[in-house]
């Protein structure tokens, strides 16, 4: 991984840096510490005697971390079968509204969770992680994006991108696109995108193929994509800080296991895993 990044670097450190940034900008803390989770500690998630099937619907960006949670929970509760279903947050919310049988919902933004809460299908969502946008550039920077020299303060997005650059972002209909629109507007670059992709993965694919000069994606997505991409922080990213809420659903068939899963997500162990995966911790 190339680390010419001006603002952010990969791994837990990145998370901490982001938290620091957030603290500076006043966005760092949301709500109270989650009940139960953190105090219970990482040693034994849930009651050892959990049984049955637990269905978790989660935003696609959570795939790696939540798969780890599945193994952890199943290992501690041999009688429990955890089934994970990953998709875009709006698709997940729609599924729940259409009556999909599930116990836990974790979305990549609060708006989608709000749809479910308003419908009375979930209550008391807890924000468990955050994410912010990075500018990713294909290996070798074929578009010749103006990369700033290492500085303490990340520059504005406008410093990187000119009219010539081919830029991919998420479509405004999906959460990452809403975030992208916010930062681009703030940078006076609303006309910059050349394509509005249907999800983060599609943006990353186009960057990885070198077909666009730059893309705006979430930090955790860059970490998940692995080596080979150059990425840079920029000043406007804090305006589009994305919060991930989780909630057990009112219609949960296995409420005990659902509570255990939510607790695990909010526990020190869960938070650490999220941090390693490039998420920004919200709660402390």
């Amino acid at each position, binding site marked *: 991984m190339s680390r010419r990044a001006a603002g952010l670097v990969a791994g837990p450190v990145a998370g901490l840096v982001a938290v620091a940034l957030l603290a500076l900008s006043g966005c760092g803390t949301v709500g109270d510490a989650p009940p139960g989770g953190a105090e219970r500690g990482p040693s034994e998630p849930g009651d050892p005697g959990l049984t049955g099937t637990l269905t978790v619907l989660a935003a696609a960006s959570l795939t790696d971390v939540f798969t780890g949670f599945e193994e952890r929970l199943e290992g501690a509760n041999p009688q429990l079968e955890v089934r994970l279903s990953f998709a875009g947050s709006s698709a997940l919310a729609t599924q729940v509204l259409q009556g999909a049988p599930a116990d836990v919902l974790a979305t990549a933004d609060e708006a989608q969770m709000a749809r479910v809460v308003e419908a009375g299908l979930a209550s008391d969502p807890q924000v468990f992680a955050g994410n912010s946008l990075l500018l990713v550039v294909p290996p070798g920077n074929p578009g010749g994006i103006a990369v700033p020299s290492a500085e303490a303060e990340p520059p504005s997005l406008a410093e990187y991108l000119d009219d010539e650059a*081919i830029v991919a972002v998420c479509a405004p*209909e999906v959460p990452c696109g809403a975030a992208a629109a916010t930062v681009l507007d703030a940078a006076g670059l609303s006309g910059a995108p*050349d394509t*509005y992709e*249907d999800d983060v993965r599609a943006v990353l*694919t186009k960057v990885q193929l*070198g077909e666009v000069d730059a893309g705006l994606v979430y930090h955790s997505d860059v970490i998940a994509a692995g080596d080979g991409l150059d990425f840079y922080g920029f000043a406007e990213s804090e305006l589009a800080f994305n919060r991930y809420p989780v909630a057990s659903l009112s219609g949960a068939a296995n409420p005990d296991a659902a509570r255990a899963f939510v607790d695990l997500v909010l526990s020190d162990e869960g938070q650490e895993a999220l941090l390693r995966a490039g998420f920004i911790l919200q709660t402390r």
Partner: protein
Amino acid sequence: MPAPLLVPAALGVAFLVLPLIGLLVRAPWSAIGPALARPEVGEALRLSVVSASLATVLSLLLGVPLAWVLARSRVRGRSVLRALVTVPLVLPPVVGGVALFLVLGRQGIVGSWLDDAFGITIPFTTTAVVIAETFVAMPFLVVSVEGALRAADARFEDVAATLGADRWATFRRVTLPMVAPGVVAGAVLCWARALGEFGATITFAGNFPGTTQTMPLAVYLALQRDPEAAIVLSLVLLAVSLATLLLLRDRWLGRAAA
């Protein structure tokens, strides 16, 4: 009619038509007028129809000769060629879009040359939409025309040859008119497939209102935020495609059948 045929046939009709009825029943009819008046919807619709039509023309220009080669020539490895030609039928369109990048993208085998030599870049342009749709839809035309060519009596081509027509004249004056119904059917299928194309288009051409956002892309993205708007857009697409096909039927298929 025998029940073993009639009952599954009725089930088949129900299976295909009920989702459509579902769309119609749940459709917010009052929202359709305003939806049509929205400039971005008109733009997406126009782009869809234009690019699907261009893709069909391109498919005809390339696909009919290809079908002829598959049906009539004695080229070695024809069965391998046929299998290759139908690959886009089974390939997930998104993968097809990535494959197009690898050839025609900025970094692609042909695309990088185009970029260096002429400064032409294809991805994220309307051209890319047409190419993606052609890639996915042309096999439908090829398969249909090849079937028509195989069913056509090749002795008519012998007759034409004995009357002084070379192979090209024979193709133009005898083969093509005789398989015209098959060509029209294939073109309609191709057009319909191109009109509904989503995966290869959003991958290779991206999604930008006015240049690459076709109706299926608009529908999919609307579904993310406003399912009702997605239904409206779907109905608009449905109405346009039905109207076009009915018009074609009167103008073209009707005459071919007469």
